[in-house]
């Protein structure tokens, strides 16, 4: 323990601090972009799976298949598949794109499930009522169903996003400079492993804990009056 305390000032020198801060931002941006794109994709998938809007069963099954497939592949394997699939397609893309795509694929699968659960939580009579008011499927979704569904969609989606922030650590395997790979680099430079990995554990904790608290707050805040 004393050796770590002696090493502290040397570890948190100017360059290492900048390096770690950049990695912190990188992790945040990577998670944010991945989750954002994934959430939008999940939204489209959830709409495709809603019987009231998409009446073509084939497309519904395809959306279900997509969700089931990406939900059941571990992040590391998914990352490798995406990495080599980009190579196969011949695109010369950055590692950030590969990592963000992998996160977006995972996010699309889980948010499709969450959004579907949210849409299904609204009583089916609401759809009938909207139809009586001469609303089309999408209009009913936007004006009637979604305003009541957000409180079911948002909190679990945020909790799952925390899981994806944690998954970004696996993206260190393809060499994007997020926190875990920075910790590995600093460790190889000779700083003690306890300090390198301990400090990024704390940084991950800061992100994930605050996101989890926010999710818990939103759950209370968004709760419909009847559930309060």
């Amino acid at each position: 323990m004393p050796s770590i305390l002696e090493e502290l000032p040397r570890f948190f020198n100017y360059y290492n601090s900048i390096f770690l801060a950049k990695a912190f931002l990188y992790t945040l941006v990577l998670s944010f972009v991945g989750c954002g794109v994934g959430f939008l994709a999940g939204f489209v998938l959830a709409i495709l799976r809603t019987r009231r809007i998409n009446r073509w069963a084939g497309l519904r099954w395809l959306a279900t298949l997509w969700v089931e497939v990406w939900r059941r592949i571990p992040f590391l394997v998914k990352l490798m598949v995406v990495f080599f699939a980009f190579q196969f397609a011949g695109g010369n893309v950055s590692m950030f794109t590969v990592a963000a795509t992998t996160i977006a694929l995972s996010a699309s699968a889980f948010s499709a499930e969450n959004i579907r659960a949210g849409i299904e939580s609204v009583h089916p009579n609401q759809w009938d009522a909207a139809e009586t008011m001469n609303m089309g499927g999408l209009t009913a979704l936007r004006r009637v169903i979604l305003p009541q569904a957000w409180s079911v969609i948002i909190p679990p989606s945020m909790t799952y996003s925390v899981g994806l922030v944690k998954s970004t650590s696996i993206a260190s395997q393809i060499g994007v400079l997020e926190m875990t790979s920075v910790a590995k680099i600093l460790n190889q430079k000779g700083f003690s492993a306890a300090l390198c990995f301990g400090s990024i554990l704390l940084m991950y904790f800061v992100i994930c804990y605050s996101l989890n608290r926010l999710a818990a707050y939103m759950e209370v805040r968004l709760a419909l009056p009847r559930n309060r």
Partner: protein
Amino acid sequence: MNYTLQFGQVTPYLWYLAGGAWIALQLAVVAFIIGWAIGLVCASITEYGPKPARIAVRSYVVFVLNTPLLVQIFFIYFALPDYGILLDSYDAVLIGLALNAGAYMSEIQRAGFRSIRREEIEAAETLGFTRVQSIRYVVVPHILKVLYPPLSNQFIIITMSTSIAAIFGVEELTGRAYNINSITFRSLEVFSISAVYYIVLTIVASTILYTVGRYFFRIKGSVF
């Protein structure tokens, strides 16, 4: 685009990969059992323990839940040797998986404990049950029924997390996929096949767990 898919080069290794899936499953089962025990102890302490122990257990659970499994195993594997704890990669991964699963299962089982209501035990007492009988015939069946679905879900999550072991050189499914990749260089083929293995593995596990839950705990629901 000058890469043609050649699955033929990977097919000789399909049994080798299946062996990897078996190792991954073993790792998951052991991690699940240890994690379940850790979770049970932690959940009991958080619900019924003295305050200092409760705070210690809560901080372990909250810390583990909010940090990535990969970095936790990195810490166990690379930082602990400085303090005289030398673990080989399999043990480090197993301990990491078990500690991680323990935190999650502590939360699950705590929710299970909370679902018992005082009225149930009082009703059992009214019927003349002894304490042991009311636990055996009222509390345990109830808890099992509440806990079974989230715990089986957790098992699937652990099964997928075992792929992280590959990063530490354990030759389970993903580790063996890495090996085949470095022999054949058919990267996309190898990793998409191992992805299919994971899908099949988790679907088989879900189906078995669902069937067991259906016939032993009368839990309604579906595999997907």
